[in-house]
Every structure is written in C-alpha cells, then in structure tokens.
C-alpha cells in the first residue's frame, strides 16, 4: 500500500498537478485511517497536492506553509452513495437529472452526463467535510439505473474523476415494480440482461434489441458482466441478498457490492465470506416495507462485527443531504459500533469499494484531502473549519452561508436586504 503510494508520488513529482501553498495542519487528535490510528497532538504536512508526512508535532514546516490548528483532523470524507449534483431542486423536474423514467435506455445511461458541478449542494456537502462522492443514477425505466461516477467536491469543471465507475441495479420493491410487478420478474430481467451481454455478438447481429436490453445498454454492461467493473445492487431483504450471493457464486468473476441491506445482519457471515461490501443507512430501523421487516439500528454494527466491509451513508433526500452521513455514523457508534469502524465507513471503506486510490486516509503519499474540525467529526455539534482537496484550500462558503449572512440581522432601515452580499 505504502509502496504504491510512494510510486504514485513519484509519478506526481514527474508531472505535478498543482502548485498549491504547502499546508501544515495540527490537530489535538488526528484520525489517520491507517495503522497509525488516532494521533494525539498530531500534524499533517501537505505539499504539492499530496500528504508528505503524518506524525507527532512538531513537524518540519515547509517554507511558506500555511499553518492551521484544529481540534480534530481527518481525511476528506467520502460519500459512498448519493445523487449529489444530479439535481438542484429535487421536486423541480427541470432541475432534476437523477432518473429518466421515459428513456428508451437504461444501463447505458451515464450519470456523469447529468452532473452539474455548479449545483449548490456540492458546496453544502463539502462544507461538512465530504471531499469525494460516488454518485449513482436513479433507476427509473428499468432495474438498470445506468452508470455511476466518482467526483470530488471542488465544484470545478473536471471534478468528475471517474466516469462509468460502476453500474447501479435495483432489486427489491422498486426493481420488482420496474421489471413488471414482481421480484420474480426482476430476477428474470437481470438474468436475461446478463445473457444478452454474454451472447452479444449472436443476439445483436441482426437486431437492435436483446431479450431485455437494447444494443447500447448491453454494450454498456459489458465491463460489469466480464467482472471488470463494480455492480452496485440495491436490495434490502435478506432473501434478496442471498439471491445476489447465489448469483455471484454462479458468476464468481463479478464484482459486487450491495446498497440498502437493511436486513444485512441476517446474512452477514455469508457476505463476509464472499467479500461483498455493503453500503447502509444506519438510521434505518423501521419495518418501512415488507423488505425491511428485520431492520435494526444495530445492522451496521452487526455487519461490521461479522467482518463485512461497511460504508455508511444517509439515503433520505440523497441529492442534498449526503452530508448527514456523519450523524448516521455517530448514531451507529451510539448503537455499539467502534468509533474507528464508523470513521472507516466514511473513508477507507468507500475508497475500497470504489477503488479510489490514495484517498480516505492520512498517510504519506496519499492525495491531500484533509479536513480540520472544531470537534469530534461524528458529533452533530461539530463542523469543519477548513477543507483541502488535493492540497487546495476550499472556500468555506455556500449559497446557504450567503443567505445566512444576509439575514443575520434584519435591519432594512437604510437599504433593502437585496443589497447585502
């Protein structure tokens, strides 16, 4: 791991991406996400977009470095599942590119095409310490939602750093409904689609449509079916996840992760044995549907206990509130999950699931996504005081903070509010 990072550092040195001011971040506590654990009075040094050292203070201070002091320092958090940047206002169709119910296409839909780096939710999410996002399309026309992507939260052009990083497939009740009305139909669609891809040459020689997929959709799924690309299955019911695991055992080359997994604890050992990671919302503890009858606030912890890689997210209003994953993780801790595991669920676990190299940790050679906090990052009363992405200091301003500052006092005696900026 370290060697790989050093190698990428060498590559970086050969072709530097940025010449940002060096930064030295001191933390009363520095959570590294590595075998270094949590350092008391630690320090992180950032140069040329990379972390160059992590250790006890005092550290070597590069010339001209900006020095920042904070209560806590962590790696930039990674949102493992959201629709951030796909919708400016969820309820306004014109401003929502999350799903396409009337599209003729499904698996071929490339969510990155709908990503808007100017979406106000990006800065709002970044202000809460999230520097990277895995963004999934919504499945609206078929159970294949399309291709998800990975992005940073700089809000700059080029912030998508990996398009078509995974394909999103919904099973459960939504998948059943999209497939025609039953879970049985969803599985028939899934198997049919895989056959369409496997027998692509024969099936699409003279037709544009396979049994399930159009030619374009089948082409888009090629990497996944060959096991070169991650398939993210949405499923909650234990039986469903058993079926996914059966499917993976029949197709051992597939790279699979499960999102939802409210009943995951019931099949935790098997998930661990097959090394299938899960992405869960640890708030989910209600029998909200017949797929979630065994939902429990201890799900995340029970999965982690069994050795499953767990990423924690917040599903509700996932185009705007991915940021609440810290609160969800904090509640997982309250329900028994060790703090370290909960932090990993926001950093190293999503990095591992999506293959984000050199992210999610504070380690020499890692990309310098660093967050300085005014308190324990999993406490709802804490907030970042500084955020760095690839070593670049990020503005701590959003449309929300501008509205706040405008209305901090309601004095209109001289001029209307509209002049306050």
């Amino acid at each position, binding site marked *: 791991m370290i060697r790989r990072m050093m190698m990428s550092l060498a590559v970086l040195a050969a072709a530097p991406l940025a010449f940002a001011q060096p930064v030295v971040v001191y933390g009363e506590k520095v959570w590294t996400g590595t075998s270094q654990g949590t350092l008391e009075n630690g320090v992180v040094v950032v140069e040329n977009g990379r972390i160059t050292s992590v250790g006890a203070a005092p550290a070597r201070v590069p010339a001209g470095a900006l020095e920042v002091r904070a209560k806590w320092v962590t790696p930039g958090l990674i949102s493992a599942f959201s629709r951030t940047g796909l919708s400016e206002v969820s309820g306004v169709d014109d401003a929502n590119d999350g799903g396409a119910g009337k599209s003729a296409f499904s698996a071929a839909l490339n969510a990155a095409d709908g990503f808007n780096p100017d979406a106000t*939710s990006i800065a709002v999410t970044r202000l809460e310490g999230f520097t990277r996002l895995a963004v999934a399309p919504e499945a609206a026309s078929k159970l294949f939602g399309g291709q998800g992507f990975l992005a940073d939260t700089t809000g700059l052009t080029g912030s998508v750093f990996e398009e078509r990083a995974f394909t999103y497939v919904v099973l459960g009740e939504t998948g059943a409904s999209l497939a025609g009305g039953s879970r049985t139909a969803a599985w028939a669609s899934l198997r049919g689609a895989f056959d369409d891809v496997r027998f692509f040459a024969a099936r699409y020689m003279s037709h544009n449509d396979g049994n399930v997929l159009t030619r374009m959709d089948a082409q888009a799924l090629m990497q996944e079916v060959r096991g070169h690309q991650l398939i993210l299955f949405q499923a909650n019911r234990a039986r469903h996840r058993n079926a996914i695991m059966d499917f993976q055992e029949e197709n051992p080359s597939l790279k699979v992760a499960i999102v939802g997994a409210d009943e995951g604890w019931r099949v935790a050992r098997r998930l661990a044995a097959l090394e299938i990671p899960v992405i869960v919302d640890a708030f989910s503890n209600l029998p909200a549907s017949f797929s979630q009858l065994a939902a429990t606030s201890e799900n995340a912890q029970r999965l982690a206990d069994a050795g499953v890689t767990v990423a924690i997210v917040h599903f509700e209003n996932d185009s705007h509130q991915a940021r609440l994953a810290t609160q969800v993780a904090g509640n997982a801790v309250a329900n028994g999950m060790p703090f370290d595991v909960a932090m990993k669920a926001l950093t190293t676990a999503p990095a591992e699931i999506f293959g984000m190299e050199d992210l999610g940790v504070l380690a020499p050679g890692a990309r310098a996504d660093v967050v300085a906090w005014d308190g324990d990052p999993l406490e709802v009363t804490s*907030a970042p005081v500084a955020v760095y992405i690839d070593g670049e200091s990020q503005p701590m301003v959003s449309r929300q903070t501008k509205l706040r500052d405008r209305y901090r006092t309601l004095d209109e005696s001289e001029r209307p*509010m509209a002049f306050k900026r």
Partner: protein
Amino acid sequence: MNFRLLCLAVVAGLFVAACDRPGKGGDEASTSSIANPFPSTYKPYPSKTLLITNATVIDGAGGLIEKGSVLIEDGKIKAVGTDLKAPSGAATIDAAGKWVTPGIIDNHSHLGAYPSPGVDAHGDGNEISGPVTAEVWVEHSVWPQDPGFTRALAGGITSLQILPGSANLFGGRGVTLKNVPARTVQGMKFPGAPYTLKMACGENPKRVYGYGGGNTPGGAPYSRMGNVAGYRDAWIKATEYKKDWDRFNAGGGSEPKRDLELETLAGVLNGEILVHMHCYRADEMAQIMDISKEFGYKVAAFHHAVESYKIADKLAEYGACSSMWADWWGFKMEAYDGIRENIPLVHNAGACAIVHSDSEVGIQRLNQEAAKAWADGKRIGIDIPIEVAWQWLSLNPAKSLGVDDKTGSLEPGKMADVVIWSGNPFSTYSQAEKVYVDGALMFDRNDPASQPVMDFELGQPGEGDRK
C-alpha cells in the same frame, strides 16, 4: 374539557345541550364525552414514587441544575432541586453522569396516519378529495399499532401531535397524543388537549388540485393566489356559520344545520382550535398573518418554516411559533432557501422556535436536531445555553399545542413526562435510557422487557428494533 372551554364550544354551536344546563357541569368525564364524540380514554399507568438524584437536570423552563434531583409522585413532578430527600418507600435512581430532561414533544408527526410499513393500504394521511377538508379528523386515520411510535419513544418522545398531510388548504383536525401504546387511538389521546387544525401554504395544494392527477387544470387552487382565495372564501363561510349559531344560542330562531367542515373552522374563530400551518416561504407566512387578522384568529405555529429567519422579527411581533427542521433543504422549490441557522436566528429574534420532525426517522433523535441548531447558532455568535435551547423540544411545542400547563417542563404539578439520558443529550453518542410518561416507565434501553413491540412486528424476523 372544563366548563369554560365547553361553553366556548357552545358558542360555536357544537354542544348546545350541555351549555344550556350549566348546573349539570362538574362531572368532567360526562361533559367531555358530550363535548367530544371521541373522548380520551388514556389513563396514566401505575407508577412508583421515584427520586432521581445526581443528574444534570434541564428543567425545561430554562434552568439547569448540576447534581440535581427530580422527585416524581403520583405520576406528577413533585419537586426539582439539589437537596431532595426520598420519601419513605420511594425508589431512587442514582443518575450520576446522566442527564434528565422533560420528555420531547414533537408537534409535527404523521405516525399512525402514514405508518410503517408504508404500503398504499396504510396511506391515510391526506384526504385529497378537495382543497378544503376541515371536516376530517386525523385521529380517524391513526393506526395505534404503528411501530414508529415505539421508535419515537426510544428517542425520548413522550407526546406528539399527529397532523393530516399538507395536500389541502385545510387538511383537517390534528390530534395530540401521549406516546403510550394503546389498543385504540382514544387510549393515546392527550387528556384535555385542545384540537388543532392543519392548513397548508404554497406548492402542495396547488400541485395536488390545480395540477392534480395529470388533468391540468384540475380545479382550484391552481396558484398561490388561488390558495389565498380558497382560505378567505372558507373563512367567510365559517364567519357566517358562527353568526348563525351565535344568533341561535342567544335565543333566536331555529337551530342551524350542523356542518362538520364549518364546525371546525368556527372552532378556530372561537379560539378553541389551534391553527398549525404548513408554510415554507417568508412572504407567504406574512400574508397568512394578515389573513388571520382579517378573520380574527391566530396561527399557533408555522410548520417547516424554512424561511422564518427572513421574517423572524415579524413572527416575534405577531407571536407565532415556527416549527422547524435543523437542516432540511432543497427537496422542493419552497425549501430551496433552507439554512442551518434558521432555528437559532428565530430564537435570537425573540420568536418562539420549535424543533419538529415530520418524519418517522427524524422523530427518533430530535435532541440531535436541536443540538445541530444550537451549535450552528453558536458558530455565528448566538450563544444560547443548552437549557434554554431545550425549550425548542418541550415547552415551546407544548405551548403550540395548548398543553404547556400540563407538560413540557419539570415544574411541580406537571405530568411526570421525563427522560433519563445516558449523557449530554446534545451529544450524538447519548441515548435515552429511561422514558417515563406520567411517571410510568414506558421504555428502558437496558431492559428488553421494558421495550414495547407493536402487533405488526410480533412474529416477524425483526421483533422490535433490536431483536
């Protein structure tokens, strides 16, 4: 219902017979059953005299006591202080390191009306048959077996208001419940709580009716101006209705025909039914305040109120509460300007701030939502003591529901609706350990036998939260 309230109701033309014979008052049970066809049958469960000592006590009225004690007797708060002695035979709990607060009151919930599991057959929260459905009462939709009630209890919720949805201009009557499992909704109804009326501003009514069912135009209201015309039109009818009954009650003419819809609206005009109004935008709230002045009623609380921070001064002057989320935003156009400092900015302007959930998930940790708002306020220089901020969770919602004389703070004589927290409830890591309703232990995190499980969950793969 006491006699004064009963007579107020009579003025509205609801309960003529009872008021005509005031001498027969006094038997509260019988008068209230006449007054209300669906009377509360809630009775506090048996409780012991209990002294909780050594706790950090937030009294809910703005005070904090280190190493404090709370004495509960006969289901009521008997005393709060530092030097209380346990009466003979009393149980005691040494709550060193723990915090004690009044139970949380959520004044915006749809539990029971939109229960878990959220299947179509359970969708009983919106009577969308017309824009004005003041005639419906949400208690007739509440399924007391909703597992959500038990999850809320584990989050320290001791009372809650169930509201109809926000599809309509007038959505119907709300109901205030004690969060105690019961076989019937009557068994949960908060004794003596006034009724409430749900109204809604903005996008929902015009979307559901004007643009309803894909048949545009579906019918009024089609716009925000249509919304306002709809409110005013209904209030004009209610005013006429009230006049007819006033005239009749003063001894004139024949008895007017009862009208369920106008009975509720007239109840508002008589000041006995409290208006709870879903309203996001500042400009709309200002117009609603004007409408209420035109017709002589008062809005108890604006709900959601994501733009209250823009008119916090006007809300303070008018005297309406704002029932708010800590950080919800962006899910619809009228929620676009939501900011994290809404609650502290409203509080800071001297207006009444309330933390609400509108969610079966959010209701489980309203203390954390208050904590966020408290911390966000502090970051911009609005430094509110925790014990004052706690009023957003208990006393202010109690006021908005007209039950602050009975609960909402740990003041002697009030219902012993009390939560013992494992630590500071503004920490994510703290949890409600013991929850008392009227002095009776209704939830104990460390004792599975003291954790209610609803019928629906019995015999399922998960039986309660933590099987």
